[in-house]
């Protein structure tokens, strides 16, 4: 290789390294893997529900911290616990990464007829003491679900039992109590942790 070719190759090498460095610096750490973000955060309408202690759970209850909200029910043995487990793991991974502010996990019952505050509380606190279980009347649950674009519907089964079809989305509420962002379907714990860190601005 002549001196001139060497210079060109060297310059190309520098340019490539600089390009990779800039690409990583500018886009990669801020690139969400799977979360969606609302164009503008949406204020939640009034709703009056109950937490696991039987205390009032209103829009104000979602202010003051980042919340990840999932709609499920305690007769659900697969998708609901799997999602709560992943969110719990995501929180732990964020904690281990040195992030001080962690999102709170909130489970809203789509089977309020059967899920009393006590039952939903036991279920959600299985995954962590700081979690919140929410239930109440069907009408008030619908208000919150509708504002988060969450679908749920009780379905009668042929054998006389029932199940509840529901949106598996995880919704993110910002510290001002506004609907900020979310995840459309189930992700890995790593993806939840990664995206939540970006969404919460702590990356």
């Amino acid at each position, binding site marked *: 290789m002549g001196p001139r070719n060497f210079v060109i190759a060297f310059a190309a090498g520098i340019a490539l390294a600089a390009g990779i460095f800039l690409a990583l610096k500018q886009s990669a750490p801020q690139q969400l893997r799977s979360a969606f973000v609302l164009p503008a955060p949406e204020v939640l309408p009034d709703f009056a529900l109950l937490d696991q202690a039987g205390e009032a759970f209103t829009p104000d209850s979602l202010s003051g911290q980042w919340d990840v909200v999932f709609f499920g029910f*305690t*007769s*659900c*043995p*697969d*998708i609901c*616990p*799997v999602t709560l*487990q992943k969110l719990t793991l995501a929180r732990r991974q964020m904690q281990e990464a040195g992030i001080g502010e962690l999102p709170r996990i909130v489970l809203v019952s789509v089977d309020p007829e059967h*899920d009393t505050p006590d*039952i*939903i509380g*036991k*279920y959600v*606190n*299985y*995954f962590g003491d700081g979690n919140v279980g929410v239930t109440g009347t069907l009408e008030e649950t619908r208000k919150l679900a509708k504002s988060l674009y969450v*679908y749920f519907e009780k*379905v009668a*089964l042929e*054998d006389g039992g029932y*199940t509840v*079809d*529901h*949106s*598996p*989305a995880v919704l993110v509420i910002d510290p001002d109590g506004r609907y900020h962002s979310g995840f*459309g*379907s*189930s992700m890995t714990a790593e993806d939840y942790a990664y995206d939540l860190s970006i969404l919460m601005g702590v990356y």
Partner: protein
Amino acid sequence: MRAAMAAIALLVAACSGESAAPFVVANIEVTEPMPGRGMSAGYMTLTNNTGSQITVTDVRSAEYNNVEIHRSTVEDGVARMRRVDKLEIPAGSTITLERGGLHLMLMQAEGNPDAVSLSFYDGEMLLMNVVANIVRRAD
């Protein structure tokens, strides 16, 4: 008669301790009963090493009052869970019961058992008994 022969064949093979048993239930993971309703989920692989289809119509457990075969699906942004009548394992195949898909729903645990026994039936014909430890939540 055919069913009885099949049962004997399965039993003989199962007792012989050979590695290629005709029907193998493995990788069993039954979750701890969830507080609130005492409900668990069961995940595993079912392998049919025979030359004909194996059908599982019922699963019973001494530790739970009721066990059903369910399938979770997520389609068009809606998560659903429905009962499945039976599991059909084609000859020489393995099916997987896994999170977010086919699984056992174990209802009304008797207390908080450490282990779970599972009996797989085709109608009244017992195919297999297995015992597995219950998986506790990792802290």
